[in-house]
């Protein structure tokens, strides 16, 4: 890396270190290791697919090639994006707490801990995306629109980091924040069309302000884009793409500026 300035090089090697540590620590002392990272989304898909698809008889819309109506896959395309948002937000608070003792004794750019955690999360998400794409290839339900899945994942990552930057600073002060955020994220799961469909909202005449909130909140936009790309095989609507990009960019920027401003104070927290 000859062209990088020393401070950038330092940050890069720290991000690499924290990413490696996060990946290793996650499945330390486990025999099956990375296998567990697939078990979590898989069981969620199976359980939710059973409860909503079989018990309640929810119908997933037809896939882009018209030959599958699979509620499990409908869930999976949504969950893969949603879990990036929640894992990065929840993770950020832990990643910052994890290095705060260290930061009191030695100087290093604190944001590298969060960025490193995000890199570890991105690698795991990439594996899940490969599984999803593989399944879709087997079902011959695939098109070039799959590139928008990665656009949605990157947006979800930036948005999650932006929120994570802010809440992790709050959490460094009051540990209550992590529990509060955990609950809020559980609630907002139902603001995102993961276990329900747009059609269900249409059928029940959900409109007005609530509908705007349900349709245009950032995680819902990311999920819709991913689903257009992987399930319906359509190019996402341009205004949704634009709104999602704006949400991701603005949230990340605000979080970044706030974190850079506050991170020196972390070393003085008792």
């Amino acid at each position: 890396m000859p062209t990088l300035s020393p401070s950038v090089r330092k940050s890069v090697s720290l991000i690499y270190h924290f990413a490696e540590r996060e990946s290793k620590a996650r499945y330390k002392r486990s025999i099956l290791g990375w296998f567990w990272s697939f078990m979590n989304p898989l069981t969620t898909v199976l359980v939710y697919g059973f409860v909503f698809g079989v018990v309640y008889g929810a119908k997933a819309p037809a896939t882009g090639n018209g030959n599958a109506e699979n509620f499990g896959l409908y869930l999976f395309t949504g969950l893969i994006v949603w879990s990036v948002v929640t894992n990065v937000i929840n993770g950020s608070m832990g990643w910052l707490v994890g290095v705060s003792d260290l930061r009191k004794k030695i100087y290093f750019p604190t944001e590298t801990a969060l960025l490193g955690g995000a890199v570890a999360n991105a690698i795991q998400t990439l594996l899940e995306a490969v599984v999803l794409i593989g399944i879709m290839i087997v079902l011959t339900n695939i098109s070039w629109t799959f590139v928008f899945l990665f656009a949605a994942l990157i947006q979800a990552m930036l948005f999650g980091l932006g929120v994570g930057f802010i809440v992790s600073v709050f959490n460094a002060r009051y540990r209550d924040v992590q529990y509060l955020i955990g609950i809020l994220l559980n609630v907002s799961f139902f603001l995102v069309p993961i276990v329900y469909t747009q059609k269900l909202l249409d059928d029940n005449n959900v409109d007005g302000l609530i509908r705007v909130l349900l349709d245009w909140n950032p995680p819902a936009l990311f999920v819709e884009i991913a689903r257009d790309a992987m399930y319906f095989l359509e190019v996402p609507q341009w205004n949704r793409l634009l709104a999602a990009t704006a949400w991701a960019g603005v949230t990340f920027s605000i979080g970044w500026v706030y974190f850079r401003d506050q991170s020196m104070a972390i070393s003085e927290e008792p």
Partner: protein
Amino acid sequence: MTIGAISVHDVSKKFRLERNRPSSLKEAILRIGKRRDTDDFWVLRDIDLEIEPGAFFGLIGHNGSGKSTLLRLMAGIHRPTTGEISSEGRLSALLELGSGFHPDLTGRENVYLNGAMLGLGRKQMAASMDTIIEFSGIGEFIDEPVKIYSSGMYVRLGFAVAVNVDPEILLVDEVIAVGDEEFQRRCMSHMNMLRAAGTTIVLVSHNTTLMADLCDTLGWLDHGRLVEIGDPDDVVASYLAMVDAPGDNTLTTHD
């Protein structure tokens, strides 16, 4: 600025002591609008100091006089409340027991982590790994998590890393006093080697004989103020005269 120089300009550092600090969000919300029971504690006041590249600078003073805080400011851990502090060059610091070590990582992983914090890649650290293990005398414990280390082992590994990463500035607090006689001697001779190689060294110690021996210049901090700076023997003499004089040396927040 030239590499190895440290410039401290008009620096003051205030810490806020907060009694009955709200420990949860609920308490914090319930306290909104109420007067906070805080006390400002000036640890350092109006410090002006220029350390030349290649200098061996020592800091002496009572417990609580602000020596360690000044080192932490130089290391960039805290930001000064007022004034400016700047340094140029790769800065390596050994500030307290196990500083910069993550308890759950092994000694070896911590060496890599410390290297990353100093901007040294894995390759560079791998190249000096044998030297570091050899210097620390830690042996096979290098692959054990550092939380099981004794305090002596902590400081051995910490010092080994701090001096073997080719620092341009080295900050060392008391800690070496934890090591045994033989290790302390090794530290001293190694610091002399670094000095000969042109490294700027700032050392804090209570051992006045040692300080007078090692340092080119000595600064005496008293209650957060730099009261004297100059030739080591003179500064030690006036410091000891003050110590011998009867007086109140209680730590207070009202200085």
